[in-house]
């Protein structure tokens, strides 16, 4: 089983780190993983995206033209990646700032209002983990336990007290994601 995912949004939204946590969680389950960032002169407020591939087999191309799942967190990303979801694939979008919602009927479209929820609950720093929770509800590519294990491995010890907040964010994301 191979899952090819693109995560795209504004720089500063935690797109790259969300991809990194997902890749690391795959590693915790002995899966093959590749994390390929668009590493142009990205900056806060600009666009950022990352391709994450989690697979049971060695990963071939780290660069793809179509995806099983696209997670889009702003309008430009939606416009760019909605057409690149494979038929029957999944599109997850955050409704915040989306003026023109997705229109495709041959894919599964999910909406997650993570930005609004994060602001409401004062959890803006773990916004990306709310989105990750939404993804894992739709596609349990890795278990929550593996994500927590990955966080313990990648976060410096002085930040380990933040792990429960991350877990809460993942579970919140699982609750609020809705199929359109």
């Amino acid at each position, binding site marked *: 089983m191979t899952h090819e995912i693109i995560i795209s949004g504004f720089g500063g939204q935690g797109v790259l780190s969300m991809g990194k946590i997902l*890749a*690391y969680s795959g*590693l915790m389950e002995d899966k*093959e993983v*590749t994390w390929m960032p668009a*590493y142009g002169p990205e900056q806060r407020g600009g666009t950022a995206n990352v391709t994450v591939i989690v697979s049971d087999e060695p990963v*071939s191309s*780290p*660069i*793809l033209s179509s995806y099983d799942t696209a997670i889009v967190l702003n309008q430009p990303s939606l416009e760019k990646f909605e057409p690149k979801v494979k038929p029957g694939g999944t599109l997850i979008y955050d409704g915040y700032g989306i003026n023109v919602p997705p229109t495709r009927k041959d894919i599964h479209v999910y909406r997650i209002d993570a930005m609004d929820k994060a602001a409401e609950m004062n959890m803006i720093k773990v916004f990306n983990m709310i989105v990750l929770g939404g993804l894992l509800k739709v596609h349990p590519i890795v278990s929550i336990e593996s994500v927590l294990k990955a966080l313990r491995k990648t976060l410096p010890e002085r930040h380990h007290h933040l792990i429960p907040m991350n877990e809460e964010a993942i579970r919140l994301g699982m609750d609020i994601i809705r199929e359109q």
Partner: protein
Amino acid sequence: MAEKEITLMKGNEAIAHAAIRCGCDGYFGYPITPQSEVLETLAAEKPWETTGMVVLQAESEVASINMVYGGAASGKRVMTSSSSPGISLMQEGISYMAGAELPALIVNVSRGGPGLGTIQPSQADYFQTVKGGGHGDYRLITLAPASVQEMADFVDLAFELAFRYRNPAMILSDGAIGQMMEKVVLPPFKPRRTEEEIAKECPWATTGRIGMRKPNIITSLELRSEEMEIINLRIQAKYREIEEKEVRFEEYMTDDAEYLIVAFGSAARIAKKVIAIAREQGMKVGLLRPITLWPFPTRRIAELGKKVKGILSLEINAGQMVEDIRLAVECKVPVQWYGRLGGIIPEPEEVVEQLKKMTL
């Protein structure tokens, strides 16, 4: 046996970790995207406190390569890394090292050119790397990693080859392999060689003259043409030996292949995806991935050329390696090129379309 250390890291980080672990004595470099993580990782790891490895940010690429020359002249395992424009600046030093027969490692995490170009991945430095780059009749032993694991593995291999043949070696990678993160098992720690070991293994090195031995002189200068020809002939004989013994490549699904893709580095990764899609559509395609770009797997490509109906050279450049493939098969089978330029990476589907045109 200790459990293998599996970790997730960028290709550039893997280069740095592998250098510390393979007993590298010194790294001299100057930052440039997309390879700055090499120097950053070394600075963060502080190997000078553990293995004693020197890490120095030089004032320029020209300074870096000449520091490498100096370190190599004393028999030390020394290296530098840069990206395309920086590697261009180093060409004089590289030619001097080839002329003085100095072993060293140069890593090029290449980006799109010409000129300052772009910071996105490119394989447009193939000609520069395997055909010279600097002046004079010389060659660089060139390894082309296609994964983060190979970024780690090829550091020690490059040093081994460089010292075996007293010749600079290059790892030719690109921004995609440098920036992407994958699983990697880092090599085990190997201690740096002691001064005594260096003196024994490198009797040519300027390690300090003991007793009455003849002074060792490291130079690429010889003004007497008769002598210079002898030196050149000796270097050429060494190159022929390398071509005989050190060719490395990977074959993938070539057994029943009617068409062959030849691709290296990140293009070879794309090629594997292309092959998966093409085979689903009934096209029997295989891959030959040169691991050493010089020496080039000429003989094997010639053999495969007799079995297939056509060869596609997939490169992230305007068609450079395609010339070596045509030479290898002596134009007895059609050889086409496909690639993208300026930092654009070809997507698997567009390569499949190209293959379809070939197979019609």
